[in-house]
């Protein structure tokens, strides 16, 4: 049956981080309105950090997001370190990469297991799955706990890290703790294989929808870029990170408290799928195997496959963490004093820090005066960079769904939004579908 009139009003999309709304209005088969709104209460971090000291910025901006607090801390530290010409040791660099893997695991497993899986199994949340699919839920919890323990070990906390400070770490794990972590990573592989099989059996539930778009992510000749690299676009190639403003071009739309962004097209996409599309060759061997299981290869333009790209990245993060711990062990872990506080020469300057966090590329850009007081700050959040792409996907998807029931259309649109794993607190906060 063709749906001539559709009225969708999902006020506050559920199972996403933050508040967002979907509005769709179809009259006589013509889409009159199709909008993605972000009504989250704005938080004004860029204004709050002005006047604060260099040694506090990472602590404050970590609070932009509970889920990617490690990524915000790292982007913040990189911006401060770049502004003041501070370098960190090879050992600290490896530990920071482990911190980022910990967060990637924590966030992706949460998203796939708690937020996406219920859609694929036709329920409203993970809660009924605890009794209907207890083994699957236990596996997800086990992986999630391992990821949390990893973040806790490297960063001193699972959320809002403490050990990560300008110039390095206030405290580092012992080699024994790292070896224990490596064992946990190795033990996680069979669980990941089980999760991959589960998603494979449900993959047909992911809509087969493509809309060509631009993908942007960090890239590096040495590795699957997460902590560092150059900016890369599937449309325009590579650019130094310092020129990020020519990529992000943020603008304000009246319907959202979050800013939107565009580059050479009307929108672009960041996140796991963008990274995979740009850096596929650098994935670890097992991660590539999982991508092949799902026929996922670059350049994939189906946004729903961002879920699968996250699954591939989970496997990559586990394998790459084992590699990093091996390297730390082989090099001999250098001890450091308790309450370590690197000696930092404060100076005036501007620095940009870019890091790939679970939902895509994140930029922090600070200017400091000679006393190390922040005079200007700009943070460009992954979810903001995806807002325009989400709305354009919705506009392309709705006309293809008009032979479905309103409930089915609503579910597909919610699944689309969830596939982006939006983090609306970050972007200010966001999701919900309103068929009006």
């Amino acid at each position, binding site marked *: 049956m063709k749906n001539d009139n559709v009225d969708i009003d999902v006020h506050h999309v559920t199972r996403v981080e933050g508040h967002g709304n979907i509005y769709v209005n179809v009259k006589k088969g013509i889409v009159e309105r199709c909008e993605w709104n972000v009504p989250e209460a704005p*938080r004004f971090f860029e204004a709050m950090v002005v006047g604060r000291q260099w040694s506090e910025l990472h602590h404050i901006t970590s609070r932009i997001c509970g889920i990617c607090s490690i990524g915000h801390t790292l982007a913040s530290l990189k911006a401060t370190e770049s502004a003041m010409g501070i370098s960190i040791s090879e050992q600290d660099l490896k530990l920071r990469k482990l911190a980022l893997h910990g967060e990637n695991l924590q966030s992706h497993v949460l998203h796939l297991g708690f937020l996406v899986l219920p859609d694929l199994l036709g329920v409203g949340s993970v809660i009924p799955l605890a009794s209907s699919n207890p083994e699957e839920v236990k596996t997800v919890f086990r992986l999630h706990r391992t990821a949390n323990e990893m973040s806790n070990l490297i960063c001193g906390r699972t959320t809002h890290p*403490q050990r990560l400070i300008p110039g390095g770490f*206030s*405290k580092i794990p012992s080699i024994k703790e790292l070896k224990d972590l490596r064992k946990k990573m190795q033990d996680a592989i069979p669980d990941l294989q089980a999760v991959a099989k589960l998603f494979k059996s449900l993959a047909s539930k992911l809509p087969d929808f493509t809309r060509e778009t631009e993908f942007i992510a960090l890239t590096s000749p040495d590795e699957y870029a997460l902590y560092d690299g150059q900016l890369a676009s599937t449309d325009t190639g590579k650019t130094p990170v310092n020129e990020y403003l020519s990529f992000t071009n943020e603008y*304000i739309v009246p319907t959202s408290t979050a800013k939107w962004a565009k580059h050479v097209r009307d929108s672009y996409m960041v996140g796991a799928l963008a990274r995979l599309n740009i850096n596929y060759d650098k994935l670890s061997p097992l991660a590539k195997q999982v991508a092949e299981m799902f026929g996922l290869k670059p350049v994939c333009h189906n946004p729903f496959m961002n879920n699968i790209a996250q699954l591939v990245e989970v496997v990559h993060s586990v394998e790459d963490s084992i590699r990093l711990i091996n390297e730390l062990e082989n090099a001999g872990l250098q001890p450091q004093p308790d309450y370590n*506080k690197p000696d930092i020469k404060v100076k005036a300057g501007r620095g940009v820090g870019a890091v790939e966090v679970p939902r895509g590329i994140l930029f922090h850009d600070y200017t400091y005066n000679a006393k190390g007081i922040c005079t200007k700050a700009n943070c460009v959040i992954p979810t903001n960079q995806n807002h325009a792409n989400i709305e354009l996907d919705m506009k392309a998807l709705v006309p293809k769904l008009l032979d479905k029931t309103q409930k089915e259309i609503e579910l597909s649109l919610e699944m689309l939004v969830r596939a982006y794993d939006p983090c609306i*607190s970050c972007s200010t906060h966001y999701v919900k579908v309103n068929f009006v």
Partner: protein
Amino acid sequence: MKPKVAFFDFAGCEGDQLQVANLEEELLTLLGQVEVVSFREVMKEHSDNYDIAFIEGSCTRLQDEDRLKQIRKNAKIVVAIGSCATIGGINSLRNYKELDEVRRTVYGENAKLFDTYAARPIDAVITVDAYVHGCPIDRDEFLQVVKSLLLGKRPDIPTYPVCVECKKNENVCAFERGQYCVGTVTRAGCNSCCVNQGTICWGCRGLVDNPNENSHKEVLIKFGLTVDDAIGKFKLYFGWQEGKR
């Protein structure tokens, strides 16, 4: 019948609700004792029929007050979780600035589109029955508070400063290390978690009920620190409590 519980969020990072998800297996145990009827971050279903409401985040807009008042009306017990909800938290940093200027800094000439007022804790708008402090909250403390409430008891929240826990943990005092720390006046209950990790107490659990200001001044004098050092750090989390609104 199991008590019905609901989770709500206002201006914050949702890091506290994340700690609830991070309970992992213990979350399943908890779900055996209560029925979650609303939790937007993890479930599609929603009901306004609940006994206990957990609220994360600060109130930062007049328009959000109605939603808070409605939650108060629906719930028998309201629990504020996390610094933003219990004391205003890091959000209140902006209360020290002209709000028009703050809006312009972030949104430029479109500033007028974005409503805001001084960030405030939940109990500045509605009555709050219990608090789970911290940024983020501690999972075990959250469970303790929930257990107390289910047993009809008042949760046991420390009324002494973080310094007490820190000394027990045999940390080297941050002041002795040449750093400024607000553990002398911050409510304990975190087991001095940040100092244990080699940093300082930032004050996320808020001022203790009767902070010993004289002893804090003595510390400043002893270590040659200025009032500016103190004010700078106090602003991070104590903005609302210190009356800057």
